[in-house]
């Protein structure tokens, strides 16, 4: 019920059609990685997936935003099936900050991540954090699908109170092959370029 309302409201205000350019929706385990311009990204990308994939696809959400307050926490964990990521947790925590993400992938389910780590003001994504590389290395069976979210940084920029109605789309690109011999920096740059190519 709340899920249907949230999706309907998102569609009404920002649209959020999924456009599958390089790949089709699939049951295969996937790591979707996208540019990050707004808090709506999490909802929009998740809502752009076909309903039957949403149950096993978990957006990664920042614990310092989505974990705050009962309503946000409820939406993130109960409605969106999100995994909360503690951006401030150091390497001291057992398994590192990526532990909850590894857990989901080990179960064979899919993830949605925003490898920039923070919301950008610009149309094109900034440099990617190494988390994506760790996950790709540890779970080579998961397909790496680049996604570009168009217009969201205009519809709901950092610091704004309400989203304005601007039609947004999620463009899904061709899966990225992981090469264990490639350097971390080269991989992250290639992943970023795959998202930029969809812009």
């Amino acid at each position, binding site marked *: 019920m709340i899920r249907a309302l949230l999706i309907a409201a998102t569609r009404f205000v920002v*649209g959020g*059609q999924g456009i599958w350019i390089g790949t089709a929706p699939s049951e295969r385990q996937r790591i979707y990685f996208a540019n990050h311009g707004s808090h709506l990204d999490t909802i929009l990308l998740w809502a752009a997936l076909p309903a039957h994939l949403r149950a096993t696809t978990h957006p990664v959400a920042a614990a310092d935003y989505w974990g705050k307050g009962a309503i946000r926490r409820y939406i993130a964990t109960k409605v969106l099936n999100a995994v909360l990521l503690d951006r401030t947790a150091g390497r001291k925590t057992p398994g590192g900050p990526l532990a909850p993400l590894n857990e989901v992938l080990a179960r064979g389910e899919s993830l949605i991540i925003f490898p920039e780590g923070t919301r950008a*003001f610009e149309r094109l994504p900034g440099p990617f954090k190494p988390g994506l590389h760790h996950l790709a290395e540890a779970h080579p069976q998961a397909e790496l699908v680049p996604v570009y979210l168009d*217009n969201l*940084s*205009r519809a709901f*920029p*950092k610091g*704004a*109170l*309400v989203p*304005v*109605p*601007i*039609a947004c789309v999620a463009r899904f690109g061709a899966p990225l092959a992981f090469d264990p011999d490639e350097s971390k920096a080269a991989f992250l740059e290639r992943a970023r370029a795959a998202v930029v190519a969809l812009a």
Partner: protein
Amino acid sequence: MTVAGIVLEQRMVFLFGGVAGLLILASLIGFVLARSVKSEAGRDTVRNLNARIKAWWAMVAVFALAFAFGMGVTLVLFALVSFYCLREFISLTPTRPSDHRALAFAFYVFLPLQYWLIWTQWLTMLTIAIPVYAFLLLPVLAVAKGETHEFLLRTAKIQWGLMLTVFCISHAPALLILNIPDYRNVYLLFFLITVVQLSDVFQYVFGKLFGRHKIAPAVSPSKTVEGLIGGGLAATAVGAGLWWITPFTPLEAAGMAAAIVIAGFLGGLVLSAVKRSLGAKDWGTMIEGHGGALDRMDSVSFAAPLFFHLVNYFFTV
């Protein structure tokens, strides 16, 4: 209910019956064409035609609701039309994140305000709210962010979008508040929308059949002299034939229809240029076969304010 009232209701049933009959005929023709046309180009045209017919059914259903349930529902429906048109316009317009506050006011304050002013029948304020107050307030909201990059351009785009999609389109339902003695204004709205839509489709059909001389090939390649004259005259003739639902004489109805046709044509031309300057062919994907909502409302946005003021000037007390 008075006798006159009943007569008017019968008139409405008759009008909608006529429109539904025409659409059934059009749907049948479309169905037959889809089966008989074989060439690839011909198929494309038929597909386009059938998608248009389907969208008209939706429009007629929406209007039937509006007409049956009165001014409140009509205003809500037109406010939604404005909302979708403005969303399309802003989506295609490269605004900056610093324009967010101005955009939020355009969508959440000025759009509802405009339709609320019609509901309260405050004629003076509805004519100046957006041209004066939004014009002054929106750049103030944007300037507070301190970004000067393309400031004039960004401000102008938001104001233009608001004028076109909210101010202009709202003049269609605003016809309902004009004071014309012993008349149900809802028929004026019917007259306006019918003439505009028929003018569009007649120009399209005449252009396809006889079009030789393009009017503005760089702006809108489908507009031809033959289409404009043939389609415009046909739509004017239908408008004149509808004089009995208006407060006009047959000659006045023809003149009003001609004004609507010309304004509608110019609106289509101007918006086509705007769209191309933004690098797009269609405004959006909301109505199948119609491009976007704004692709169907471009003629209305220019015709509605003109028709509103012509009626207000010559036919109200």
